[in-house]
Each structure stands twice: as C-alpha cells, then as structure tokens.
C-alpha cells in the first residue's frame, strides 16, 4: 500500500513538474511567433536609416527602402549616400543577393558580410522572422517578461544561439544577445523607442547594436514609415532588383 501511495505521489509530482515545462516549451515558440508578428506585419514596406559610429565619433549613414513579405522574403534599395544609391539587396530564405547598378547583375552574398560595413551584417539588415530561423529551446519568466533561449534551425543561420529578452506587456524584445556556436558573444541588439506607426503597427523604432568584437563601434537602425502593404511575390526575384525603387 505504502509503495503504491509513494508511486502515485511520485507520478503526480512528475506530472505537475513536467506539464508547465511542456506548456512553456510550446509557449516559447508561440511567444516567438507573436513577437515576430508584433515586429513585422505580414507584408509591409518601411524606410530605415542605418548609422555606423566609429570610436572617434565619425559617422556614416545609409538610408534604405525595404519591402518584406511573409517570414523569409525581404528586398531593399539604398537611397543614400550617393555612392550607394541604387544598390539593392534581396533575401529569400538563406539566399542573399546584392545588385550594384555599375556591375549590372546580382551577385550572391553571405549573411555574415556587411554591405554597409559597421557592426550590422547582412543578416541583421535583411532580417527575416526569428521563428523562421530559430526554435525556442527554453523559456524563463523574469520580472520584465520572458527570456527565450533560441537555437538556429540550420547551420547557415548567422548566429547559432540567440537569447531574447521580451517585455511581456508589449510582447516585444528589448534586448537580444547573439552567440556563435562556440558560445562567444558576437553582438547585442537593443530595441528602443517604441512608436505607433499607425495601422496597428506598434514596434521599436530604434535598434542599437554593439559588439565585443568591435569595441568602441556602435551602429543604429532607425525605422520610419512602417506601413502594411500588399506585395506580389514577383518583387522578390533577381529580375526585379533593379526596379525596387519604383515601388516607393
């Protein structure tokens, strides 16, 4: 009898302990999907300014117009400075291309390169949904909200592991730590200045980044005019890269 009672008690305790974990494991990926939904509408356009700041205070700025559709398609064109104007980038899943008007044809590029220089790389500038690239391995509840521990689904993803700190009230990230497979911290992303862009789009308007690999360097992405927009799939193709500016 005693043995049966102990077994039942043990089983009940196990169920009590495992159930929330199971629920959290599901919720982690669900929360990630919601975060993606809050950061990025299903199909939209936006303007962004990218600011690179060197340790001596020298600044270099880039302005881009971008369109994004679904989880994995994003296309951008540089509007300034004059030396970059007309260059465009396209990402479909893990495929990325750069089109330079002088060169006249798209070239494949990698996620770890940077078309602009500075701390942000192509993977940051042409960011697809986190849920497209990562699974949530673990979730922790904190005073401010949640901490999600994400693992890359594929080897081709820029950062092997990501720790995402989420504000539970707004379901938006306020900090993301990006790690290499070795465990080395590559960069931090800070999401700031939450702004109502209208049409139900409320999200951080500034992403700041720094990196222990680039001490003294900072980069910012500033968002403007984030707007829902129906976009045809054909826009996300090599043949359209020279025409993206015409979508504005």
């Amino acid at each position: 009898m005693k043995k049966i009672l102990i077994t039942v008690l043990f089983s009940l305790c196990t169920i009590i302990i495992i159930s929330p974990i199971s629920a959290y494991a599901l919720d982690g990926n669900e929360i990630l999907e919601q975060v993606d939904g809050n950061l990025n509408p299903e199909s939209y356009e936006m303007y962004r300014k990218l600011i690179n700041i060197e340790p001596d205070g020298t600044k270099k700025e880039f302005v881009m117009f971008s369109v994004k559709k679904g989880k994995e398609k994003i296309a951008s064109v540089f509007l300034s400075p004059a030396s970059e104007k007309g260059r465009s980038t396209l990402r479909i899943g893990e495929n990325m291309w750069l089109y330079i008007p002088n060169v006249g044809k798209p070239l494949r590029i990698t996620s770890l390169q940077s078309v602009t220089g500075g701390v942000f790389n192509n993977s940051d500038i042409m960011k697809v949904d986190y849920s497209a690239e990562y699974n949530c391995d673990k979730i922790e509840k904190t005073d401010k909200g949640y901490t999600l521990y994400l693992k890359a689904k594929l080897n081709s993803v820029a950062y092997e592991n990501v720790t995402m700190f989420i504000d539970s009230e707004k379901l938006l990230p306020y900090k993301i730590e990006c790690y290499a497979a070795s465990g080395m911290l590559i960069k931090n992303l800070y999401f700031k200045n939450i702004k109502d862009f209208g049409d139900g789009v409320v999200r951080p308007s500034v992403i700041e980044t720094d990196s222990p690999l680039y001490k003294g360097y900072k980069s910012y992405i500033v968002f403007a005019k984030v707007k829902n927009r129906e976009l045809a799939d054909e826009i996300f193709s090599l043949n359209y890269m020279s025409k993206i500016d015409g979508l504005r």
Partner: protein
Amino acid sequence: MRHTCIIITICLILLLINGVSFSQGTDNRSNNDLDIDLDLDFSIEEVEKKPYSINADIELQETIRFLDSDALLFKQKYLDTKKDDTFWQTDIDFTIEGQYQWEKISLYGRFNSLIYYNKEVDWESERKAEEVYITFQPSVSLAVDAGKKVHKWGKGYAFSPVAFFARPKDIDDPDATLEGYTSLSVDYIKSTEGIIQTFAITPVLIPVTRHINDELGLENEIIWGGKLYLFTFDTDIDLIFSVSDNLNNRIGMDFSKNLNPSFEIHGEAALVQDHTQYIIDEYGNTNEEKNTAFNLLLGLRYLSDMETTYILEYFHNGEGYTGKEYESYLKFIETGYKQYLNTTSKTAIFKSKKYAAWYNQQAAMKDYIYLKISQKDSFNILYLTPSITFIYNINDQSASITPGITYSPVTNLTLDLKAGFLFGKSNTEYNEKINKAKVVVSIRYYF
C-alpha cells in the same frame, strides 16, 4: 625594373596578410570607451519621394605606364619612333545619371564625359550616352524597355561567356560601367509555389543599321535572342540564346549557388556556331578557320571567417588562340620589325596590325585562371580594402599581378591605388605587351 616590381608585389602581399591578421577583431579592436555625446539625426528625408532623381560622380585619375621597348607589341605600335620609357595620362571622368518616373513610365539616362591629357595627343575629350531608355511597366510582373541599355548577363566576375548582348568587360576592372546597345526587351517574371519558385523570360531584339549598333555587323540586320531565368533548389539558372542572319548564333547557360553561406560556386558555358578565327603565322600567311567554339567558365567565391574574400575563376576561351598560334603571330611581328630596321619597309608590320584586333585583345588565348583576394576593413581601419589580382595564362605561363588598395575615408569619396605588373618568358602574351607595369591612382567623388 622587374626586381623592383617583385619587391613591391611582395610588400603589398605582406600588407594584405597583415591586414588579414589585424582584422581578426577582439583584442585588436579599439578599446576606446569614450563616452561620446551622440547627436544622431533620426529624420529620414528620403521618405518623401520625388518623381525624378539625379546622381553624378567625378573621377580624377593619373595613369603611369612603364613602357617596355623590347616588347613586340611596343615595336608593332611604335616601331623605333618612341624614345620615352614612361607614359603619363591624366583623366577627368564625369558621369551623370538621371531618372524620371511618371506613373507606369520611366525614363533613364546615363551620360559620360571624359577629358584626358597625354603628351601624344595633348588634351582630348570623349562623350557618350552609355544608357538611355524608356521603361513601360504595366505591372510588377511585366516591363518593356526600349532604347540604349546594357544587358549584363552571366554569373562570372572577370569573364562572361554568356554576355551575348553586352560589350566585352575590361578584366582589369570588371565592375566598370559599360555602354549599352540600342535594343527592345521585355522582362516577364512569375513566382510559383512549385519546385521552380521563380521564372523570368527576357526576350531581346537588337537592330543593326548604318547608324545604330553598326559595330555589331552588317546593316539591316536584326539580332534577337533572350534569357530564361529559373530559381529552383536555391540555385539561379539561366538559359540564353542569340540568333541572327549574319552573325554567329550562340546558345549558353549559367548557374550560381551557395554550397554554404560562405561558399558560392558559379559557372557559364556557351557554344558559338560558325566562329571564324583569323590566323596569321610567323611568315605572314593568313588563314580563316571556321568552327563551333565552346566557351566555359567555372568559378567560386569564398568568404573566410576573417572576412577575406577569394574569387577564383577558370576561363576556357574556345574563340581564343593556342600557345603556338599566338607565338607565331609574335614571331611575325618580330620578323616585320627586323625588316623595317633593315629596309625601312613597314609592310609586314602593317599586315600584323590588321590582325591586332583579334590577337591584341584581352584574354586572346585559350585558358586563363583569375584570382582576386580582398580584405575588408584592414588594419583596423573601416572602409580600407587592400586586394590583389592574379591573371594567369595557362597556355604560355605568363601572368599579370595587380595589387591595389581602395579607401573611403568619408562618405561619397573613394581613393584607389593600383599597380599592375606583367610576367612571362619571351614570346608570351603578358611579356610582350606594351607596358611592363602600370600604376593608376584615382579619386572619385559621388554627389
């Protein structure tokens, strides 16, 4: 001179290697933790789009060529009339481009004006419209272009066997803009949910008359062709063809794919029907051979963890000359030059010059290796990119090596320094060129 060239090349290679090690980051990056008072302008003026846009750039370039008076192509060009061993040229190059959009129609133009000075011609100028065309785009999927346009097709970097509708690239500067051909083209794009995620069809029509595209062939000719693009299994694939009554019919294909995020492979292959090769032997006997030429390009691009980019390409030029054929041409020039010295007769030299259009062009022989290595942000300096380019002629083991540095210290300003050196035994392509070395310094400003 050659020893100096070798020493400079070795120094620049060491510079590149040191730039690589400095660019590893971590401890080598600045630890300057100055608390900078950031005055960031978060406004984005470009949100308000205008119907027109204008861009321009101006480049000042100084070129110094170290002439090789022993080289056979030097003797072919100058005989014994040129005594200088250096040739200086100053170029001022101005390019302006503009676009105007009105609903579904847009007009684009890019114009170039070059003013140059050298001792031989004094001040001279050239102007050209590189591209001027109108686009009608009734939908995202469909665009029609009419006018002078560049159709730069192919996946190769330095060489492009399938660029059927473009002028030849300068392999010393593959990224330079080209002048287009007057054409009519359509671009139709379609995305699907199937295995082929995207396909695009681009038919092209190029008229040839006395005044339009006249360098392409006989007047009253139409060259037509097109490209079929497929994006499938994360691979870009193009099928391309070109046909005309009087010019060579061509068919080709290319592909490009990432094997992993840092490693890209690409290739091109083309068949040129009824290609005519003009051959002159060491005795001045000429011959025309007709065959189907097969051109092939295989290449890769690799980005290392230290952000060093390697571009490696093998080019088989089926329309080129064998080692023996090229050597015979050079021997004929040598014979012609000796004849001139002995008898003042220029007949043989002038005869060799008639074949210069084929023999003296870039990559005139059959097999080449191209390697370019560049290092981003060297020496802890943002926007400083040293590079080195090797072009190796497999057929005669001659080569050119060009180290260079590009630096953008401020927005819209680019400084460029390149030095090219040629190596090879006697009677080889790179050894017998007019220059033995060349230094180019340029400053370009965009506005």
